[in-house]
C-alpha cells in the first residue's frame, strides 16, 4: 500500500520550507507577505494531517486572515512607491496565482488523502480536539491562560504608550462644540456700501 500520509507530509513539508525561504529571500515585500500566507496555509495542512483541525482552523483564521493581511497593510503603508506598485500590479499576478494555485492543490491533496486512506494518523485524543483543548485550557492550564491575557494587555498598553500623542496643533472635531454654537457666534453680517465691495 502506498504510504499516502508520508507522501502528503513530505510534499507539504517541502512546500513549507521553500515558501518560508522565499519569505526572507524575495526582494519585493508584497511577494514576501504572499509567501508568508502560503507558509501559514501549508503549516495548517500539516495540522490537518495530525488530526488537529482546530489548530489548523485557528492558523488559517488568525494568521492568514488577520496577521498576514495586517502585514500586507503595513507593507503597503511603508515607504513604497505607489506609482511603482500600481505600474507593476500585473507583475504580482504570477506570484499571486502561483501561491493561490499551490494552496488549491494542497487543499485537494489533503482532502483526498483523508478520504482515500481514512485517518492518515492515529488521532491524538479520543474526543474532538476542539473539545480537548477547551477542556484543559480553562482547567489544567488556567494559570498560563491568565498570564497570556496579561501579556496581551501589556502589548496593548505598550502600543498606546509609544504611539498615542497629544498634539496641540491638531484641530479635532468636537461635536458638542459644534452643536453649541449659536447663530451669533457663527454668522457675521457686514454692511457693505454699494460700489465699494471688492
Amino acid at each position, binding site marked *: 500500500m502506498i504510504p499516502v500520509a508520508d507522501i502528503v507530509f513530505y510534499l507539504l513539508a517541502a512546500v513549507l520550507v521553500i515558501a518560508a525561504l522565499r519569505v526572507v529571500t524575495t526582494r519585493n515585500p508584497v511577494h514576501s507577505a504572499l509567501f508568508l500566507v502560503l507558509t501559514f496555509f501549508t503549516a495548517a495542512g500539516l495540522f490537518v494531517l495530525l488530526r488537529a483541525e482546530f489548530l489548523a482552523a485557528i492558523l488559517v483564521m488568525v494568521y492568514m486572515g488577520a496577521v498576514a493581511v495586517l502585514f500586507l497593510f503595513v507593507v503597503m503603508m511603508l515607504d513604497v512607491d505607489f506609482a511603482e506598485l500600481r505600474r507593476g500590479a500585473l507583475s504580482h499576478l504570477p506570484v499571486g496565482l502561483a501561491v493561490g494555485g499551490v494552496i488549491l492543490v494542497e487543499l485537494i491533496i489533503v482532502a483526498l488523502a483523508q478520504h482515500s486512506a481514512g485517518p492518515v494518523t492515529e488521532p491524538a485524543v479520543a474526543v474532538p480536539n476542539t473539545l480537548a483543548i477547551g477542556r484543559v485550557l480553562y482547567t489544567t492550564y*488556567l*494559570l498560563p491562560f491568565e*498570564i497570556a491575557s*496579561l*501579556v496581551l*494587555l501589556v502589548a496593548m498598553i*505598550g502600543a498606546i*504608550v509609544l504611539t498615542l500623542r497629544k498634539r496641540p496643533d491638531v484641530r479635532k472635531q468636537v461635536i458638542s462644540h459644534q452643536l453649541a454654537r449659536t447663530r451669533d457666534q457663527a454668522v457675521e453680517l457686514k454692511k457693505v456700501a454699494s460700489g465699494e465691495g471688492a
Partner: protein
Amino acid sequence: MPVPMPDINLIALLPEILILLVAMGVLLLTAWSRETTQPLLGLVAMAGVALAGGILLIQTGMTTTTFGGLFVLDPFASAMKLLMLVATLLPLLMSWDYLARHRLDIGEYFVLTLFALLGGMLMASSGDFITLYLGLELMSLSIYVLAAFNRDDPKSNEAGLKYFVLGSMASGLLLYGISLIYGGAGGTGFAAVAQAMGEGGGHAPGIGLRLGVVLVLAGMAFKIAAAPFHMWAPDVYQGAPTSVTAFMAAMPKIAGFAAIYRVLLEPFGPMQSQWGPILQFLAVASLAVGALAAIAQTNIKRMLAYSSIGHVGYALIGLASGTELGFRSVLIYLAIYIFMNLGTFALILVVNNAGVGDEINDYRGLAKKRPLLAFLMAIFMFAMAGIPPLAGFIGKFYVFMAAVKAGMIGLAVTGVLFSAVGAYYYLRVVQRMYFEEAETAFRMEVGLLSRLVIAVSTLAVLYWGLLPGGLIDWAEASIRPLL
C-alpha cells in the same frame, strides 16, 4: 463529562495577585487622573511593591505547589522574589527626580514596571516550561516598552526596537528548545522532563532533548546578557532612559538567574554533564567580554553594561560548579550585585540631574566640587572591582571558592585574572573624579528619595563586606530545600 479542576491555592500567589491588582489600579487611576497628579501614582506603585515584600516575608519558609504543579512556592522562590522587589523598589525611588525632569513620570511607566516585576516573580515560581516562558514574555515585553519610553529621543527608540527584535529571536530559540524538550519528554512540567532526562542514566538522553537543553540555555543566556548573547546590552543600556537602565540591570537579571536555577536543578538536573561545560563556556566568554570590551568605553552607561556582563560571568562560574556551595554563592553574588549596581545608578541619576552627560569624562573633578558624592561613587567602584573590605569582594570570594572546591581551578584562575583587568576600568572612573580638574560646577539638589537609596546601598555594601554571615545564612536557607 466533568473535567477535574486542578488544586488552586491562591494564598501561594498572594504577592503576585497584589502586584497585579496594584498594576491594574494604577492603570485605571492613570486613565482618570490629570497629568499633574500622575507622578503620585509612583507612590502607589512603591507602596504596592513594599506591601508585596511584607507578604513575601510572611510567606518565607512556606513550601507548596498549586495549579497542578504549574506554580511553585518554596523558600528559593521567596528569596528570589524578595531580591526582585528590592531591585524594583530602589530604581523607582531613585528615579523620582529623573522622571520628573524628563517628563516621563506618567502612570504607564509605573504600570509597565509592575508588570515586568510580575513576570519576573512568575518566572521564579514556575514549575512548568509554559509558566516560565509566559512569565519571561510578560517581563520582556514590559521592558521593551520601557526601554523605548522616552519616545522623543531617537536613541531610546533605537534601544527599544533593538531589544525587541533581538529579544524576540531569543524567545524563539527558547521556545524551539522547549518544543524539542516537549517532543522528547512528552510533557512540559519540570518533574516530567526531569524523569524523561533521568531515564538514560544521565548520558545520551536523545539528540532532541540535548538540543533542547542547549537552546533553552541560549535563550536564557540572552535574557541575562551572558556572552556570546550580550550584543544587545551596551546599546540598550546606553539608549534607554537611565532610570530604566538601572531597573534593567537589576530586576531581569535576578529573574533570569531564578529561571536558570529552576531549569538546571529540576528538569535538567540529571543532565549536569551536558550543561556544565556550556555554563563554563558562557562564564569565560562573559568574563572576557565584560573585562576587555569595557576598557574602550567612554560612556558610563555603556561601561556599566559591559560591567554587568562581567558580573553575570562571575555568577555563572558559581552555577557552572554545580555544587551546593556554587548555587549558594550565586545567590550571595546576586544580592550584593543589585546593591552595588543600584547604588552606582542612583549616583549617576543624581549627577545627571545637574545636567551633566553620561560620558565618563563628564565626571572629571567631581571630588573637588562634591566630595561626598565622589567618595560614595568611589566606594561603589571599588566594590564592583572586588576590593576588600567591600561586599563585592565577598561575592567574588565565594564564587571562586565554589569553583576551586568543585575542582575547576582553571575557571577560578580565569575569573581572578579578569577581575584584575576589570579593576582597571572601575578605577579609571575614580581617577577622573579625583585627579582631574572640574569643568562643571555640579550644582544639583540631591532628592530625599535618592539619598535614601544611596544610603541603603552604601550600608549594604559596607555591612556585607565586613559581616557577611547573615547574608550567607540567608542564602543557605533559601537554596537548601531546592537541592
